[in-house]
């Protein structure tokens, strides 16, 4: 049996790759907000990735990966027709809204704040809510034009789409927090906001949203090994209590998260990873 085969690959940007992967069990069970763990080869790391889309009928799951180190580089250089060694999930708690009734959702207005790669996991949430009749606005922020992903797909599942880039090469020049602040100051009201992106972005989104009492959920991309509650590498302080992002999250109340600790904990293996990536690049060059 050929498990976890890549049936479609699209390079969204030079460093961000979309892959549709054959994983029937996972596709049947997946819900918005959850993640999975992949291994590219039999000596590879277990890499947690958010689920970007899933099709239970086709039995496929879509992931979006950005090259940030040796292991994500290995993932992104795999090709259509090749298979992942391991592909496990779905993991974590689904987003809170999957437990709300259609009627309830149809009266709600959501705001998503997506940063860079975080746009990928925002998509299935916006898609789900849009299908249930909720009002959905989305802010996408990226460093530069080339790194804006999912624009067309997102436009199809939301009412208002706001795009900004750090360098002003596309959309508005500035940060997601600038757009967020403008929207909230102009009197826009939302029942719930969800921010997914780099830890530092989510920290500043919470700081920006706090004075407006905007209910805010964030999705934490912590370090993990197993993703099932076994190792505790993903522990985060939420409301002064230690939580495991893999089983208690990945979504938490943004105002309760200790982002400084979370950012610091992400650095735990950074030096080792940079070394590994360096090694890896040499290897790839030799192969070519």
């Amino acid at each position, binding site marked *: 049996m050929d498990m976890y085969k890549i049936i479609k690959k699209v390079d969204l940007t030079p460093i961000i790759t979309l892959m549709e992967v054959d994983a029937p069990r996972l596709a049947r069970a997946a819900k918005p907000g959850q993640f999975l763990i992949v291994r590219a080869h039999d000596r590879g790391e277990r890499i947690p990735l958010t689920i970007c889309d899933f099709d239970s009928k086709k039995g496929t799951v879509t992931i979006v990966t950005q090259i940030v180190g040796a292991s994500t580089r290995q993932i992104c250089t795999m090709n259509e027709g090749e298979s992942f060694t391991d592909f496990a999930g779905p993991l974590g708690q689904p987003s809170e809204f999957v437990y709300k009734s259609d009627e309830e959702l149809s009266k709600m207005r959501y705001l998503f704040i997506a940063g860079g790669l975080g746009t990928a996991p925002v998509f299935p949430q916006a898609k789900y809510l849009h299908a249930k009749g909720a009002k959905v606005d989305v802010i996408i922020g990226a460093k530069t034009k080339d790194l804006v992903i999912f624009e067309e797909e997102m436009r199809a599942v939301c009412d208002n789409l706001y795009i900004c880039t750090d360098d002003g090469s596309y959309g508005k020049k500035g940060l997601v927090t600038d757009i967020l602040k403008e929207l909230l100051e102009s009197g826009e009201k939302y029942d719930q906001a969800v921010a997914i992106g780099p830890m530092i972005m989510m920290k500043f989104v919470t700081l920006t949203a706090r004075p407006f009492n905007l209910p805010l959920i964030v999705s934490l991309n912590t370090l993990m090994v197993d993703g099932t509650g076994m*190792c505790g590498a993903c522990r985060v302080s939420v409301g002064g209590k230690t939580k495991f992002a893999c089983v208690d999250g990945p979504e938490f109340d943004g105002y309760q998260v200790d982002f400084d600790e979370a950012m610091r904990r992400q650095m735990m293996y950074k030096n080792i990873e940079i070394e590994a990536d360096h090694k890896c690049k040499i290897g790839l060059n030799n192969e070519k």
Partner: protein
Amino acid sequence: MRNKIPRVPVREQDPAVRIKNFDEVCYGYNEEEARLEASRCLGCKKPSCIGQCPVSIQIPQFILEVENGNFEKAAAIIAKDSSLPAVCGRVCPQETQCEGACILGVKGEPVAIGKLERFVADWAREKGICFSSSANLNGKKVAVIGSGPAGLACSADLAKLGYQVTIFEALHEPGGVLQYGIPEFRLPKEKVVKAEVDNVRALGVNIETNVIVGRTVTIDSLMKEEGFDAVFIGSGAGLPKFMGIPGENLNGVVSSNEFLTRNNLMRAYDPSYDTPIYVGKKVAVVGGGNVAMDAARTALRLGADVTIVYRRTEKELPARVEEVHHAKEEGIVFKMLTNPVAVLGNDKGWVTGIRCIRMELGEPDESGRRSPIPIPDSEFEMDVDVVIMALGTSPNPLIANTTPGLETNKWKCIVADENGITTKPGVFAGGDIVTGAATVILAMGAGRKAAAAIDRYLQSK
């Protein structure tokens, strides 16, 4: 009259050499040594060793065959009751089980039953002898959750009875704690664990990895949609415990589960793997069980100075005597009657030390153990850059939380009787998920009992 020689010592890797590698510490007996040791067994008419073995191996029978040089026969006798003899010969606490009951132990040293079991299992494996013969299928399907000792033992017995067994494993390699928990230098992964798992596969058992029951599938979906007639839960005690002291989330504090999983399952010690591990220069391992010894000896081999910090005295260490002995030989420092009260860090959030308090033993509590009491004003600091918490583990609530009708107790353990029967019809459980963290062999014993109960249940249906 039996051979009145002292117990035959087992050859081991020199401590000065082995602290620099992950090769197995104990070499085991050769044929000559095994036969000599076997000749010490009295062959008691009413052997008390068997009753102390959780899987009831016919110990004097197999030892007699070893003495006579009939190693294949010996292996066949063990195979009737144990699906993992090469594992058990290495990691069972024989001193409190079979060997603890050996009559020779009253005045001298008991027969080295564990080392003999290991010899027989290794001999059979090296000769390529496998006793796994699949039975005719009876048309019934059983799902086994978890491929650790409980699940493997249960699956092997069920397969021998003709059931079609599928094991669902959450991680990417089968073996459970044998794979992620116990280090290579005590339990070789390719040579021993994989070989014994393959023997279980050879019985016709199918193992599906990367399936997290409670997430990827549920017990109800397995029974209602996938047609499984019964389910055995052997998912173990996988959740790490932390102390709840200040500084525990600093960079450099890890659970023994994380540290050992990175090094065992993910082979961080082998540069050909991509797994990062942070070892530091000075490591404190908090705890006194086998897992604490494993973590300490692993950190040592990865190049750190290691101290074990334990709140009671050496006498109360829950670890096996052999493990403590090996750890000491290797140069692990034991700081007893000491308990951390805070982890200390620098302004960048990395560990720089632990503040500890000295303890003394008070009056025995209800369990008869003398509980440790802090000595006032006895706090002191230790310079370390990594702290490994090896405080025990508790069951993962994932399955219980997603299975209506399955009762758990206040420790989150699944409620099951001595035959593994739970509160949900058709669902059985055994091993650490029922008892809380215990041993490989107790989990195997529970798996076997549950297999028998599943057979009775499905026969009567």
